[in-house]
């Protein structure tokens, strides 16, 4: 076991420890706390990147906790999903923490600054743990770590709406967690094992397919709620729109993607067990994806608040990812995975730049933000770049995934789905252009717009970087897809290799 393997538990333990210490050490010392959190996030990112280079050299990184080998011991595994979402989580959390220096001061009361930083770090640790967990119970525990910290983060915003939205999010999230735990209980009762690949092997010999089917259903519903896939998205707009902007970025960019990760793990587990065909599950994902794309885009279009529009756009994009997974062809799954990574970047950029506009003016409606581009050119430019990317115009990062999913629809022999992919993109473009038009070409309607100041450098730098990456990310698409290809084959081929 090389030394680098020990970095895997470190990528979980480090942010959680730093997060727990943050409120204890830096109560009411905002600046110090912010630097503490940024340092911890940067170290976590460095840890993850070292693991990524290790994994790219020599395949999976495995860490048997306490030296007990799987399936009896707990094992942490850093696989393709870990590489993809782990590096995204580390990088985006770091950028969000940098941008938060300005946000948190106005969007949360001073007593809560240290809590905010602590919770963001705990959230990062939870996500890293979720990605590395190879047994179901750790999956559940880390899911709860990032979910509970997310509920608390939503509640950090001022005002009565935030508390109610957080409570709604908590109740829905807790119910979905319980469904997942129920499924874990059923699977454990059937197989006597918790290790995911071990369960996959043993489930084939289990006597009660009904219980296994119930477990599959509970896992799918539970993770669909976490991923906010239509029609289980109802909690998302409130929670994401009323949270403080950096928290919205974190939730929309990363936390909902974890539900998809859970879904992929579930699919791989049951594909390995090979007790029933997964065609029904795939078909369900396709239809839910189609509905989510269209309905999310239409609902985004009729919103008047900037952050609500972005929240509904998350529903659309989770639909794309579900559609890509459901099509279950190499191109579509590759597209879904690429879209997971790229959408995380784009949506973080969107929420942070939109947050910058809302922060400087105190206004949140599109109509009130008219003409703001003159006073805030950098933030508006970053928002515009990210909006074009989320609509999926060709050179942007949003294009890669959608193109691949459309190709996958052809591969699967369902060309009509291309029309859905296109219409989702066009509807998104329609409301994106409405925002861009108000910002750049309409005369200011409110006094706050005339006196607004450009966001501070700590916000401008991350959002401009995210905007540019979102804009030109598509150029690196071929490289990303080439790298993702073996991973999507592994997801599709799980079980067939035996």
């Amino acid at each position, binding site marked *: 076991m090389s030394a680098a393997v020990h970095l895997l538990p470190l990528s979980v333990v480090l942010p959680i420890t730093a997060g727990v210490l943050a409120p204890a050490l830096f109560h009411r010392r905002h600046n110090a706390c912010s630097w503490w959190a940024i340092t911890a996030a940067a170290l976590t990112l460095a840890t993850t990147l070292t693991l990524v280079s290790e994994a790219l050299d020599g395949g999976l990184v495995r860490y048997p906790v306490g030296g007990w080998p799987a399936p009896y011991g707990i094992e942490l595994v850093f696989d393709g999903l870990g590489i993809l979402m782990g590096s995204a989580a580390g990088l985006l959390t770091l950028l969000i923490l940098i941008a938060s220096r300005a946000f948190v001061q106005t969007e949360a009361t001073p007593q809560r600054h240290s809590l905010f930083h602590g919770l963001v770090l705990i959230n990062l640790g939870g996500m890293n743990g979720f990605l590395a967990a190879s047994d179901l*119970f750790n999956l559940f525990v880390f899911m709860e770590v990032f979910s*509970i910290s997310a509920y608390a983060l939503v509640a950090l915003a001022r005002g009565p709406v935030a*508390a*109610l939205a*957080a409570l709604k999010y908590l109740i829905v999230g807790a*119910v979905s967690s*319980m469904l997942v735990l129920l499924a874990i*209980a059923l699977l454990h009762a059937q197989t006597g094992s918790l290790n995911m690949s071990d369960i996959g092997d043993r489930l084939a010999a289990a006597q009660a397919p009904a219980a296994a089917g119930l477990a599959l259903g509970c896992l799918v519903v539970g993770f669909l709620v976490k991923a906010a896939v239509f029609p289980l998205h109802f909690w998302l707009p409130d929670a994401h729109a009323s949270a403080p902007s950096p928290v919205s970025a974190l939730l929309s960019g990363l936390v909902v993607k974890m539900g998809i990760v859970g879904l992929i793990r579930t699919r791989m587990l049951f594909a390995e067990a090979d007790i029933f065909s997964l065609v029904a599950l795939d078909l369900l994902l396709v239809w839910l994806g189609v509905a989510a794309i269209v309905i999310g885009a239409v609902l985004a279009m009729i919103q008047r608040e900037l952050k609500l529009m972005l929240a509904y756009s998350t529903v659309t994009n989770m639909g794309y990812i579900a559609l890509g997974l459901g099509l279950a062809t190499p191109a579509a799954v590759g597209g879904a995975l690429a879209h997971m990574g790229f959408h995380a970047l784009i949506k973080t950029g969107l929420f942070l730049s939109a947050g910058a506009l809302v922060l400087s003016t105190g206004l949140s409606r599109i109509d009130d933000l008219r003409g703001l581009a003159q006073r805030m050119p950098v933030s508006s430019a970053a928002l515009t770049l990210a909006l074009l990317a989320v609509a999926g115009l060709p050179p942007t990062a949003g294009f890669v995934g959608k193109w691949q999913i459309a190709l996958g629809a052809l591969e699967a022999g369902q060309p009509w789905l291309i029309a859905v992919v296109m219409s989702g993109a066009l509807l998104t473009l329609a409301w994106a252009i409405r925002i861009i038009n108000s910002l750049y070409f309409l005369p200011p309607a409110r006094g706050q717009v005339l006196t607004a100041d450009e966001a501070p450098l700590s916000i401008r730098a991350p959002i401009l970087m995210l905007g540019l990456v979102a804009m030109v990310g598509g150029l690196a698409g071929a490289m990303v897809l080439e790298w993702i290809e073996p991973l999507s084959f592994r997801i599709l081929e799980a079980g067939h290799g035996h």
Partner: protein
Amino acid sequence: MVVLFAVGLYIVLTSQNLLKKIIGLNIMETSVFGLIVTSGMVDGGSPPLLGRGLEAPYASPVTHALVLTGIVVALSVTALALVLIVRVKRECGSIELDELLEPEE
């Protein structure tokens, strides 16, 4: 256990009172914990302890560890929910969901 789970889920979905929703959630959690513990039972099994003259077969100790962890998670969710309910009550003046949502319409 499945009945308990369904009862809990029903309360969460239909109750308008936030506090009752949390109670429903706790009923769901209890049912799942019960299911996990009973699944670890072995016919005629003794407690999984060494050195007390107890002999195999042992009941599975894993399930107890799982439930213990699960209870900690459930406790923290409940605590957070109760804090939020206190805040909703303080800021909105009610914990009945239908009363909370009405004035906005």
